[in-house]
């Protein structure tokens, strides 16, 4: 029974950390989109590109550090940062919507560039984050 309670408590803690991290990540993503709208304009989805690149870098850095230093601070905050914050900060649904609306409005070239070029960049940023984490 104690074991069951502990497992259940662990699950609840995990989900509470995910909820808090995802809320924070989503609010920050919203802040980035407002800032981009104010300073750069709405011609190209820079905000979504930016959060997806930063989030890809951070998740790879954090996950790599966590597996290199088990039981430490990094691993204890993994639910909050990796599953919560990075997941809430990055967004795939908006990426798809933006690709679609760019495609069917006036900007087929911009749409193609956005749709085809940014995913390899996400992966490059993740690889970069993992590499930095391995070196530190």
């Amino acid at each position, binding site marked *: 029974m104690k074991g069951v309670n502990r497992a259940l408590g662990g699950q609840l803690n995990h989900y509470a950390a995910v*909820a808090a991290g995802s809320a924070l990540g*989503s609010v920050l993503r*919203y802040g980035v989109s407002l800032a981009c709208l104010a300073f750069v304009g709405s011609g190209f989805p820079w905000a979504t590109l930016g959060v997806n690149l930063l989030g*890809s870098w951070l*998740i790879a850095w954090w996950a790599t550090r966590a597996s290199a230093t088990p039981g430490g601070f990094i691993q204890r905050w993994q639910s909050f940062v990796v599953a919560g914050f*990075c997941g809430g900060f990055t967004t795939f*649904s*908006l990426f*798809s*919507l933006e690709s679609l609306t760019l495609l069917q409005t006036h900007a087929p070239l911009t749409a193609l560039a956005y749709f085809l070029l940014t995913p390899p960049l996400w992966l490059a940023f993740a690889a970069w984050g993992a590499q930095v984490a391995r070196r530190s």
Partner: protein
Amino acid sequence: MPLLLVAAGGALGGVLRVALSNAVARRFPPPFPWGTLVVNLSGAFVAGAWLGHHGLPQGEADLAWLLVVGGLLGGYTTVSSFSLQTLALWQQGKGVKALCNGVATLYGGLLAAALGAALFGGLTP
């Protein structure tokens, strides 16, 4: 108010994402990240449906858009997990699986969003 809506939607979306992707991963175990794929495709579909039904957001004051698209769907779908898992597949020498995941996610997402929009009102440029 906008911040609260985005936060609430984001929290709920994140919990749904983790719960669903864990459930899918138990059924279809790794290495292929089925959980994240299912989450992202379903999220893109709902986002497309919302766009078809409601159109583009009506300025900063569109609270429903903030709650559902900015918060809930933004927190639910994820690029970071996709990047991490695709990179891991690649680095484990599973290049074909990595490529399949990329193609299925990207084209599947676009298709799901278009389908959602078409089924729930259509796209008006």
